[in-house]
């Protein structure tokens, strides 16, 4: 893929046909504004081998069971969402998928290879086709924004410094961070750091990108743009995205399939429509908002703790 072909984050003409559902692009940064409904996705082929196959994993940290008997598969090209309450183990699960931690039990197959059996060298080989965007950005604070984004290419002999800066500029413009090349992470806001870290994760066009809360800490417009970007990147490069988010409406909007993590296990796995149709109380509460679901638990309100039933 040439550099110009990569420059895909502009609204292509064919997208305009579908633009009725999308909001009008904002005039100021309209060039990069990607209404999420405007990206046409092909149906996912789930007849072949899955890209990731998670088999009966358990994770126990310091004696506490964080994940209990979780299994699911993710196929190439999918945008897969993970939702769940704070502390339900979403980050823990993502860390397992890229081999940062090893599960206490179970297997994780990436393209058929069990990554739980690999040593660090083996994992590094596999990780060359993965990227991860951390919940708290994890930018290298001794490097500028541009050096952070370019990190994966720092030792590449086959690209010139010009090509590298061009690619960095392109990625930074995708996340609407043009002009921040020389700024240090400490001088950026939390949301800006988040966007630089997304650019960094995409530098090598990984086949699988893991996003941990990519839109938390962003304003609604930017949050929508970032989810749009994730969809666009996945659609254009055919890469697979696993996205953890609290922002359920964004997830429902872009995911092909998603799962609900609750009570240490998978509560439900399915398409956004399955999620909307589910009458599992916890899923219902997530999808339709706290007030709408049937709640049999204590629910705290500004006036105190009340018992809500039905």
């Amino acid at each position, binding site marked *: 893929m040439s550099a110009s072909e990569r420059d895909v984050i502009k609204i292509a003409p064919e997208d305009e046909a579908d633009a009725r559902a999308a909001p009008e692009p904002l005039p100021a940064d309209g060039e990069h504004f990607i209404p999420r409904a405007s990206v046409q996705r092909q149906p996912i082929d789930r007849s072949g081998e899955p890209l990731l196959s998670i088999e009966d994993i358990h994770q126990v940290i310091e004696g506490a069971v964080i994940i209990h008997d979780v299994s699911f598969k993710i196929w190439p090209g999918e945008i897969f969402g993970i939702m769940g309450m704070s502390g339900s183990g979403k980050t823990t699960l993502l*860390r397992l998928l*890229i*081999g*940062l931690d090893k599960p206490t039990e179970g297997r994780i197959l990436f393209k058929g290879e069990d990554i739980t059996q690999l040593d*660090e*060298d083996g*994992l*590094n*080989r596999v*990780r*060359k086709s*993965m*990227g*991860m965007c*951390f919940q*708290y950005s*994890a*930018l*290298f*604070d*001794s490097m500028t924004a541009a050096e952070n984004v370019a*990190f*994966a290419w*720092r*030792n590449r002999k086959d690209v010139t410094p010009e090509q590298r800066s061009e690619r960095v500029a392109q990625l930074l413009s995708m996340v609407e961070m043009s002009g921040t090349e020389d700024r240090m992470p400490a001088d950026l806001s939390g949301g800006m750091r988040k966007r630089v870290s997304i650019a960094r994760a995409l530098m090598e066009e990984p086949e699988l990108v893991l996003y941990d809360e990519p839109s938390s800490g962003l304003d609604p417009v930017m949050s929508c743009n970032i989810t749009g970007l994730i969809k666009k990147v996945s659609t254009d490069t055919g890469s697979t995205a696993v996205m953890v988010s609290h922002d359920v409406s964004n997830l429902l909007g872009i995911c092909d399939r998603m799962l609900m993590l609750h009570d240490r296990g998978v509560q439900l796995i399915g398409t956004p429509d399955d999620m909307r149709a589910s009458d599992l109380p916890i899923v219902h509460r997530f999808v339709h908002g706290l007030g709408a679901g049937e709640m049999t638990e204590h629910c705290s309100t500004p006036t105190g703790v009340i018992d809500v039933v039905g």
Partner: protein
Amino acid sequence: MLSAIAVLGAQVLKGLEYFGELSELHLRTLVHLTRGNVEYRPTVEQMSSVGVSSLPIVAVTMLFSGMVFSYHVADQASLLGASGYVGWAVAETMARELGPALTAIVVAARAGSAMAAELGTMKVTEQIDALRTMATDPVQYLVVPRYLAGMMMVPVLALIGDVIGVTGGFVMANLTAGMTVDGYFGSIPGNLEIWTVAAGVIKAIFFGIIIATIGCHQGLYTEKASEEVGRATTRAVVYCIMLIYAANLVLTVLLFP
């Protein structure tokens, strides 16, 4: 009684575990070095950081140590009628002992602590994990450059410290005993053996390795809480100083049989 034994046993186990981790980190560093997995830029950055940050303190420390030492020696020497050997005595002591050991202590406090603090912060803020997700071994990217910087810069600093210490010694001998340049420095060339200086350099190389390995280990094994970074930093300095003194004894016996 039993519980005292249990506590002691637990401490011994902890100590063994610590040395196990330290050896493993050292081994992994050596494997990268033998494979030539050295990144140029961070290595140069670390060398300049270790060298530049520690030089002023090394200079001050060695200057005053040389002065104090020479003051004592000049006093004793005049009693023994051996004033002609003061310069050599100071130089010999600097090269054998004070140069490498004091330099190493200063570098441990300045650069070893910085290594622990920097890597500890990276650990706590998941930057180390981010490195790993980008298929980069933190040992290769972070530890190897610091190891090389410690190994190369501590001997250089120790040699500079030797010279500053001997010069400080001259200033003191001149002020208190009225020694001349010839009388002080003239005794050095014929008496100080090159091997003595080399042995001091060898010591300094080992001290540099100790500082980098302990500093990096404390950083990489920091627990994920910000107050732990402070603790790791303090521990790095304390362990460095203890291990440097212990290694100094062993190396002295081996190098000066």
